[in-house]
């Protein structure tokens, strides 16, 4: 933490590490506010990352890759929707199935297609997303304090990073300021009331899960076509579960979800930065401590020791009309 520039770099890396968390967390938020638990975020991130890398490589276009990632992830979300809405399956079992199948399936297909142990060939040029350079980034970079912030923090990020920061307010707006959002939140708290009003519970939940799939698609594509330039088996590395933790931590609120993901992303960035370094008064903090911190914080929060987590009331249960 020597200089201003180091801090700017740390924050820039926070933005990049938070981006997949923000997409996945908001995806989970859409599902869970509609009353469907989704612990399959991790699997959808992987599926999308794989599809995006393969299609981006085949077509030469990162945007086509992104589209493929979104479609693949939506398909996985529809499997979850069919199982948990139509078949009234245990939503945790269904989500687990998607996580496991995605983990095995992407590695298997990656290996079968490219024979590199599941890794896909490196993407280059237009096959991946490049950093957006805002006008004048170089010209102003000499300005003290503000210059580096503009050049390295506001400018120079992948388009998907900017998209992630747009999705949070959009989600907030859609959930709180539109008729669809009102109904969606109602269906997560009291589906019978929505049903009585003549609105289809099934239709709303399906639509929520499609949005969930699309957002996971963005997050997964960012992993393989934005952040990295290839797909690697298990590359989501638990991000779907950190996003789930962030969702609980943010009490199922979009803007708080954004803030929580930034916090968890910051911890991640910090752990890489502090590796081997001495922290004042504490000495060397093991990197594993930072890895466990989001989960520990969430457990403490869930236990009600700081604040209180109030999930959607009808979450996790299939809706059955009374007979």
């Amino acid at each position: 933490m020597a200089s201003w520039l180091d801090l700017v770099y740390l924050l820039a890396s926070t933005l990049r590490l938070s981006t997949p968390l923000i997409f996945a967390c908001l995806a989970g938020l859409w599902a869970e506010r509609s009353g469907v638990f989704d612990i399959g975020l991790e699997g959808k991130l992987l599926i999308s990352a794989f599809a995006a890398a393969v299609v981006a490589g085949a077509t030469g276009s990162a945007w086509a890759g992104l589209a493929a990632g979104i479609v693949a992830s939506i398909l996985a979300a529809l499997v979850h929707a069919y199982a948990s809405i139509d078949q009234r399956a245990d939503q945790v079992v269904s989500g687990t199935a998607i996580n496991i199948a995605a983990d095995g399936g992407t590695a298997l297909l990656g290996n079968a297609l490219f024979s590199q142990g599941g890794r896909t060939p490196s993407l280059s040029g237009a096959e991946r997303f490049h950093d957006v350079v805002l006008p004048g980034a170089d010209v102003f970079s000499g300005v003290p304090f503000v210059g580096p912030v503009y050049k390295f923090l506001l400018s120079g990020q992948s388009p998907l990073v900017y998209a992630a920061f747009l999705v949070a307010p959009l989600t907030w707006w859609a959930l709180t300021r539109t008729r669809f959002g009102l109904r969606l939140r109602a269906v997560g708290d009291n589906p019978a009331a929505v049903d009585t009003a003549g609105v289809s519970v099934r239709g709303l939940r399906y639509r929520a899960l499609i949005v969930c799939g699309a957002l996971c698609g963005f997050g997964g594509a960012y992993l393989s076509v934005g952040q990295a330039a290839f797909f690697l088996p298990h590359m989501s590395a638990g991000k779907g579960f950190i996003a789930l933790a962030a969702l609980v931590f943010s009490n199922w609120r979009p803007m708080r979800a954004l803030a929580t993901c930034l916090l968890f992303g910051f911890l991640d960035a910090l752990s890489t930065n502090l590796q081997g370094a001495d922290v004042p008064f504490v000495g060397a903090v093991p990197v594993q401590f930072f890895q466990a911190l989001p989960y520990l914080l969430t457990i403490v929060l869930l236990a009600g020791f700081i604040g209180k987590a109030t999930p959607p009331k009808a979450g996790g249960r299939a809706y059955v009309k009374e007979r």
Partner: protein
Amino acid sequence: MSVAARLPRWADVALLPAVTVASAFVVAGLVVLAIGQNPLEATRILLVGAFGSWEGLGYTLYYATSFMFAGLAVAVAFHAGLFNIGVDGQAYVAGLGALAVAHALGFLPAPLLATATVLAMAAVAAAYALVPAWLQAKRGSHVVITTIMLNYVASALMGWLLVRVFIEPGQMNAQTSRLPPGSDMPEFWRIASWLGADAPKTPLNLSILLAGLAGVGVWALLWRSRLGFRLRAFGANPAAAHYGGVSSTAITLQAMAISGALASGLAVNAILGQEHRLILDFTAGFGFVGIAVALMGRGHPAGIALAALLFGTLYQGGEELAFDMPSISRDMVVLIQGLVVLFAGAMENAFRGPLAAAIAGFGRAEPPAPTSVAAETRADG
């Protein structure tokens, strides 16, 4: 669940799981076809790899032992309505019990030391499972979320301990020094050599007998004991169980403690049976296989034993398959595992309806239940 079609008992116990698992394999076979290999040939290589030699069989049963423990652990919690996703983490920290007791009581003679070590591992895993249990019972945190979180906490904790604290001096790999030999679960080839016979060296060890005992124990617990009845009653209907005098706190703690103790068996098999030291990620994700095994075995120890054997076959045979057909990596097994969870766990009701109709179609078996069918169509609307 309440409106699902009814099946005759034999179909519910045998036919339905057979059909759901077969569907998972059909889908896996289509994937093999898509990769450009022959699924029948793949199956043949897999079966020969798993059963074609004593060595293969030894590995198959070794894996099956771990899966049996993991499946039983998931199933016991499931019967109490608790989804323990934390089997992997609980088994991982059980290694600490082995480390502490095997060294502290190293002066004990072999069978006693092994017994004490096994018990210590069970105690540590049970204690780790009690954390989410207590949080659910007393603080209302959902056990699914907390067990997932605690898996990662266990992974970070053990990673730190193995890399920084308990690492064998002078070692580059994150592993401890060898545990005192008295804590070993003897491998079968070693037992054979004591008896003067020659057996192929496989990690199959006495833990498999322990797994069998655990299976019988779980059956007796669930269907022949008062605690088991309470546990199942609580799982089936918490409100009714509460009315009947079952304490939700006590039953949640008991179910998770038993589940955690069973999870430690996975660590016993891997650490005391094979590695004889702690290594990074020795659970190898086998705790998650337990979910598929428990669902496929329908929560009954006999079914779980069969399902564990099937997954043991897949893991061992899959290794041979990956060797013979490099385009089908070991990840195939993980995909099948996910498909089994999907079809046997999540989609079961989708198979139930058509099966009931098919059985009724054969006549005389059992008349269709018109009310349930009507209810289903209405509920879908």
